[in-house]
């Protein structure tokens, strides 16, 4: 059967001349997630006509995963005359329980002969006469009956909050380093919410980690891809030989620093290859001993692109809260870590010295290591 939904886009409506661009991408994203969906653009809103057997709530839940949508309402349509509006309204209200209500009419179609206050009054009176035991309450009603007068009349009583943000794919592309832990999925999601297309990159060091740690990242990417358009392209970078080379050539305390720098270099290569414009990390100041401004300075300094760290100022508890909401938390806490303890020195340096880092890296065949690692990289399309 055909079902109608009204989705509002909040922030996008402010985008001036670019509004059509944002609207088109939002429409594309909706159509990719919901089959048999016809979209009519209204001002500041889309009217979705979906031919479906799914439950309303299932459709709403899917719409809630689409960035750029601020509000979602199941709407009913009827002919543009007062009798039809009255009948339809009563039909909708029959299945609802409420003690008080008010009618809120809007009239974008000025050809309709009644003004909004007039519609409020006429429909309100009709409901009062036809349903027992209810009253009007304009300040704090149980139920708001929205009537929108357009080419037809659209009636709805409930709406749900959407994901907000901007449509996925409207703000360019960035590579996101995904470890499998709690922070990096959240930082990816936060940037996705700003409309950025994400290319997740994972550094894999089998046999020092297991297939299950790779599966973890795959599963996280799968959750994130629900918020994307048309799935995601995951890079699983073969990192074992780099880990070994660092271990063989670098002082213990600098292993992590040099490892992070290698990750940044590889990420930069992937950014170029993918014609992307930045690197996203889940770094958070002070969460572990090695996440200091000094550390971030020596890793940041060699990225050829801006590095975005959306969770940098967040408390762990707040990050966990988001990860639970988006559905990555339970995956992130599986006990398979992305880095074997063999490569985690007992005392990592907390304030790495830039000159020392450069000196240490003389001993590494950096370009060769990176080329080899990229040549053994696996690309997985997750949808």
């Amino acid at each position, binding site marked *: 059967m055909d079902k109608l939904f009204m989705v509002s886009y909040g922030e996008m409506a402010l985008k001036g001349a670019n509004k059509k661009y944002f609207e088109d991408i939002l429409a594309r994203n909706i159509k990719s997630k919901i089959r048999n969906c016809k979209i009519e653009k209204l001002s500041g809103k889309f009217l979705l006509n979906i031919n479906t057997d799914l439950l309303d709530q299932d459709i709403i839940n899917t719409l809630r995963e689409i960035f750029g949508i601020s509000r979602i309402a199941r709407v009913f349509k009827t002919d543009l005359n007062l009798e039809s509006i009255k009948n339809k309204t009563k039909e909708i209200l029959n299945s609802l329980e409420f003690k008080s209500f008010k009618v809120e009419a809007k009239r974008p179609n000025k050809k309709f002969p009644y003004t909004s206050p007039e519609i409020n009054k006429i429909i309100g009176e009709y409901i009062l006469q036809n349903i027992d035991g209810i009253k009007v309450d304009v300040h704090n009603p149980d139920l708001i009956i929205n009537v929108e007068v357009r080419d037809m009349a659209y009636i709805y009583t409930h709406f749900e909050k959407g994901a907000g943000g901007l449509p996925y794919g409207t703000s360019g592309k960035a590579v996101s380093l995904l470890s499998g832990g709690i922070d990096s999925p959240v930082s990816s999601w936060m940037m996705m919410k700003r409309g950025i297309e994400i290319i997740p990159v994972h550094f894999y060091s089998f046999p*020092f*980690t297991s297939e299950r740690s790779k599966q973890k990242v795959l599963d996280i990417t799968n959750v994130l891809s629900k918020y994307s358009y048309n799935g995601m392209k995951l890079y699983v970078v073969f990192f074992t030989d780099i880990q070994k080379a660092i271990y063989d050539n670098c002082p213990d305390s600098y292993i992590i620093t040099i490892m992070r720098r290698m990750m940044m270099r590889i990420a930069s290569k992937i950014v170029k290859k993918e014609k992307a414009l930045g690197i996203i990390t889940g770094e958070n100041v002070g969460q572990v001993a090695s996440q200091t401004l000094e550390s971030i300075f020596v890793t940041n300094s060699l990225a050829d692109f801006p590095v975005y760290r959306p969770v940098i100022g967040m408390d762990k508890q707040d990050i966990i809260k988001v990860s639970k909401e988006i559905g990555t938390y339970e995956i992130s806490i599986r*006990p398979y870590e992305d880095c074997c*303890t063999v490569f*985690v020195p007992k005392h990592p340096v907390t304030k790495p010295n830039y000159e020392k880092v450069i000196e240490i890296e003389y001993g590494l065949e950096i370009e060769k290591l990176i080329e080899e690692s990229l040549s053994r990289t696996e690309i997985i399309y997750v949808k």
Partner: protein
Amino acid sequence: MEIYLDNSATTRVRNEIINDIVMVITENYGNPSSLHHKGFKAEKILNYSREMIARLLKCSPEEIYFTSGGTESNNLAIRGYLKANRRKGNHIITTAIEHPSVSNTFLDLKKDGYNVDILPVNPMGYVNIDDIKRIITEETALISIMMVNNEIGTIEPIKEISAIAKEKGVALHVDAVQGFGKLDFDVKEYGIDMLSLSGHKIYGLKGSGALYVGRDIKIAPILTGGGQERDIRSGTENMPGIIALGKAAELLFGKIDENARFMYELKKKLVDELKELDGWSINGPGLNEAAPHILNISFSGIRGEVLVHSLEEYGIYVSTGSACSSKHHSESPVLKALGLKPNAIQGAIRISFSIFNTEEEVVKAAEAIKKIVPELRKYTRR
């Protein structure tokens, strides 16, 4: 090529059994409780499997109850016995190296108020008979001990323990999941009152097992329902699992010693091949005394799970007790109970054999180990 050397975790189903399993799900799919011919056919299959298991244990078919596997058999034996024999006392005894389905059941019973004694083991994994003599009292209701330890292959002195138990009127439950079909024994001669076994360790299906309960022993069900398995284990019988278990037992009959020799030779070959490598030692009772199919080795200076994953790259599958993680310490309680140092525990792997393995496979596995271990030794936590 695939070399599967993790047969204590589970085994591949024997080819000879597969048609029987298919028959039970396509043709003889009846419910043994049904009155009609299809039910009667299924009941015959059930009884056939029961006989085959009884023949291997040297007991009567009426003493065999089908379950969903080792864990359920252990729970049913321990909880079911205590439930039916409340007056026998409040004291129960087990060992420090039991499978979690026994050790966690004991911990649970401790919460319920049972007085639990957990026997230590020596560095070879054996319990001390004198310890049992010392702690057994009038209040002791049950001793539960495994026949063969799943990680290190120690074969516990069941006969001696049963003699003490008999003398004191204490029931003896034996978890023989790793012993059934691998060692030749007579359940009556050993004086075992209850014995757990599992199908998927002897080339049958996962989700199938049985509990032997001696004729004089009373147990109560832990599941209530339709009263199958003479009111001891309700639930429609898992016929594919049961026929596989019966057939697997039939195929092992008369072959146990021969198979044991075969697996022992493979194990010995592996150990011989590894002699060129230094810095490793066998955990548990050693090459000759352990069960023929289990070999537990600690390699110095490596992490067992990294070796497991490295061997994977060669298509070789073995296992370990610990996992690579700085946050979650998951050292094997069995290896801990032997008194091994943390490094030896972290560096341990278990290699377990089946009758499908070949000498060629074992040689290849040894070669891979000899190649990998020195390489991995370069990378230890600093």
